[in-house]
């Protein structure tokens, strides 16, 4: 069964800390995505990557950066965590964007910044 694995289910961090969220997929997918999910706002795209070492800004990239050194791993970095970054973070991957291929999501990381 294909999988997207996020390293932590729950995280609590302090304001100002540098936070790393890790995501690994075992499907040899080209594309990987980071979304944050907030009540009433749905899923909002932070960053995505269509190839190793490539990255594109999504709709809400401010305060975040990403790293993709290997095809199967996509990391989200909060340079200096703030309380407004408390949220559920979802990683996803797809073989090709749109074009008949759906996204496979990880189970999410619920981050609380105190």
């Amino acid at each position, binding site marked *: 069964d294909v999988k997207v694995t996020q390293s932590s289910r729950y995280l609590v961090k302090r304001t100002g800390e540098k936070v790393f969220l890790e995501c690994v997929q075992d499907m040899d997918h080209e594309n990987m995505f980071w979304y944050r999910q907030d009540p009433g706002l*749905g899923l909002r795209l932070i960053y995505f990557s269509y190839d190793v070492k490539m990255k594109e800004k999504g709709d809400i990239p401010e305060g975040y950066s990403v790293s993709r050194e290997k095809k199967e791993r996509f990391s989200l970095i909060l340079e200096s965590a703030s309380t407004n970054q408390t949220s559920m973070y979802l990683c996803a991957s797809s073989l090709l964007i*749109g074009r008949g291929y759906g*996204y496979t999501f990880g*189970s999410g990381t619920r981050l609380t910044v105190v």
Partner: protein
Amino acid sequence: QQPVQSPQAVILREGEDAVINCSSSKALYSVHWYRQKHGEAPVFLMILLKGGEQKGHDKISASFNEKKQQSSLYLTASQLSYSGTYFCGTEMEYGNKLVFGAGTILRVKS
């Protein structure tokens, strides 16, 4: 630009039907539909590509009206297992990313 979903929430009894709508102000290439149960990851249901096709499996189907940039998800003879939040995701004509709506909460009661 985020697509608009309606209704925001709907409550059904088992066996009733429901329609969830998704509309965009931009020309679309594709529409995805996902269902997310509480505490779980969103799960891909189906994708509709430009061309106005209708898709479905079991008692869940969807249509895509590319002239109106609208898609509808049809749930027929709903079951308890249909409960969850349904999201549409839209890909613009020459876009390369999926933008999701705010979601529709569906609750099926026995």
